[in-house]
């Protein structure tokens, strides 16, 4: 290290497009000296893919004039893992385990959208037991809370407010505890399965849900009193990242960004799935179409989610001992998993039964687990309202035990296109707020 001279830091080289500077941090002084000497006024700055405020590995190429952004282009693909391709080499049930890892902050939504598409292909949408649907709705709403918590917490953090992140992650932790109790895992649960859910409500589950709802409702106040009406927060967010309804429609934007323009488009209301038509809740909108409006939409959606969860808890109390998997034994996994002291695992009772008493059950189990079920050929599209907008799944089957093609219409992927529309003409500091308000999750963008 000692061999470096000052010139080695912000080194520059000549290209046909002008001088290019490599800035690695802490060497801005030398950069300013060099740029100050040149006559060029436009500077191209490469933000990311490792920038802490870009929500993961997002790269943004900025063309700046002073501190004004003249052009912003997003570069993605750094987190592409080929999940869609991999699903083609696993059976339909295993698909949940893969797709849950796409948008890792909203795993339940990925699983549900996928399962709804598979169930549509199987033509069993009407046969899903009510209890499974209620559990799905409850898990989705909890997941919406945990996802919004990250959006709010990291969004505030990136704009320099540290405390909201501490509060948000404290709340998120409680939601993850619920996930762990119900599914055995805190993230990427593969809990929603084609035909129902992986296991029944654990003992004491409903009480824990009620307790958590009470806790969350009380503690959301910490963040709302910190941020709503806070003059610094308003100065950083109001009028920033403006994108009106026309812009949203043109760019295919859905979710909180769309609802912040005043259009109450929410698939839970307009095209209900999983029985959302049986719940009493409001679609939250604002009409400012800016970062502050999107923040308010997310903030107020938390309370609506809690309302839905309470109704789920009421329904679940009445549905004790009801099935959580479709009755068709050719599709339903023959056993519910059980949560042991070391996490989720096989149901020992079921293993005892098939190994000790029934050869046919053993064969059946073996066939279903190794081979999986066949899905009639055709294609289907299913969509759910995820925390970021419409998560759509296009599933194609060739009649076999594996998906022929699974495609996720990821809201993050689509919404990220609006970076240019939101940021061009604004100050460089406002880009951070604008991107945070889109709430892109790169795992979902790149898949």
């Amino acid at each position, binding site marked *: 290290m000692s061999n470096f001279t000052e010139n080695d830091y912000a080194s520059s080289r000549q290209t046909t497009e002008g001088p290019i500077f490599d800035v690695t941090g802490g060497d801005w002084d030398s950069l300013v000296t060099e740029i100050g000497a040149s006559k060029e006024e436009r500077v191209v700055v490469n933000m990311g893919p490792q920038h802490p405020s870009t929500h993961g590995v997002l790269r943004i190429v900025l063309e700046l004039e002073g501190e004004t952004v003249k052009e912003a282009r997003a570069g993605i693909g750094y987190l592409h893992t080929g999940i869609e391709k991999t699903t083609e080499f696993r059976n339909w049930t295993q698909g949940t385990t893969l797709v849950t890892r796409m948008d890792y902050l909203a795993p339940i939504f990925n699983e549900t959208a996928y399962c709804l598409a598979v169930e549509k292909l199987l033509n069993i949408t009407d046969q899903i037991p009510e209890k499974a649907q209620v559990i799905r709705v409850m898990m989705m709403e909890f997941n919406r809370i945990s996802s919004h918590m990250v959006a709010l917490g990291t969004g505030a953090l990136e704009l320099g407010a540290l405390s909201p992140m501490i509060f948000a992650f404290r709340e998120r932790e409680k939601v993850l505890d619920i996930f762990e109790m119900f599914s055995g895992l805190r993230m990427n649960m593969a809990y929603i399965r084609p035909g129902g859910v992986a296991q029944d409500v654990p003992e004491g589950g409903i009480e824990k849900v009620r307790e958590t709802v009470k806790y969350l409702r009380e503690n959301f106040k910490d963040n709302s009193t910190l941020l709503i009406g806070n003059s610094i927060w308003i100065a950083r967010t109001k009028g920033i990242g403006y994108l009106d309804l026309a812009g949203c429609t*043109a760019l295919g934007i859905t979710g909180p960004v769309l609802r912040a323009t005043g259009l109450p488009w929410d698939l839970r209301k307009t095209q209900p799935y999983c029985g959302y038509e049986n719940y009493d809740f409001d679609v939250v909108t604002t009409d400012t179409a800016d970062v502050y409006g999107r923040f308010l939409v997310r903030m107020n959606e938390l309370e609506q989610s809690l309302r839905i969860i309470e109704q789920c808890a009421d329904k679940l109390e009445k549905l004790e001992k009801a099935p959580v998997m479709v009755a068709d034994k050719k599709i339903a996994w023959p056993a519910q998993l059980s949560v042991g002291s070391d996490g989720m695992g096989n149901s020992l009772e079921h293993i005892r039964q098939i190994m000790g008493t029934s050869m046919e059950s053993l064969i059946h189990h073996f066939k279903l687990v190794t081979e999986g079920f066949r899905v009639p050929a055709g294609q289907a599209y299913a*969509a759910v309202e995820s925390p970021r907008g419409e998560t759509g799944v296009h599933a194609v089957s060739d*009649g076999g035990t594996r998906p022929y093609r699974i495609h996720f219409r990821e809201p993050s*992927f689509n919404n990220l*296109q609006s970076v240019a529309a939101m940021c061009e003409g604004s100050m460089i500091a406002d880009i951070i707020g604008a991107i945070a308000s889109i709430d892109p999750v790169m795992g979902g963008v790149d898949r």
Partner: protein
Amino acid sequence: MESNINSPFAEQQGAFGTQTSGDTSGFGGVVKSAPTFGSSSRPFGSYFDDIADNLERAYSEFRDGIEKIVVDRGELTIQVKADHLLEIAQILRDQLRFEYCLGVNGVHYPEDVNRELHAVYPLLSMTNNQRVRLEVCVSDSNPHIPSLVSIYPGNNWHERETYDMFGIIFDGHPALMRILMPDDWQGHPQRKDYPLGGIPVEYKGATTPPPSDRRSYR
């Protein structure tokens, strides 16, 4: 055996993926014929008849431009010819009020000769709360589809992704280049002739082949 030109899938032999002596199950002789996908007949049910009627009324070349209309699993699919796509999309957006195009997805059917690559566009009308799916089929040798970016600007990245993954060329796209894979990548990963990859893993003397080379049910 008669092959079905309507179906994008070929008939299958045996219960496992192997063609050689690997299949010891006794199911090697099983032949599963390919499913049929014909055009649906009227009435389509739901709001689908209205969409078909309105489109027919608004578009004079309806009979030329539309290959078939399929209603399956409560969803309406309109298969259109590539050179009519722009006009149909324009009518669907402006007159039938399908304001949203939720991207485009490719599907590769190697058995569907001369129509190997399908591009699928899910459209959404918020005004009427309706959905419809457009499907365009092109061949591997001439994979050109007009770009919808001029009508639905939000399709920009989606078309880039479909180009990246399938090699479908969207004519008129403002900057059709790879988006998820590196710029210098060779091949289009989501095509069926593109291998999944992976290496055999040895553990305690036994070797597990990569997923695509394993014997598997189908």
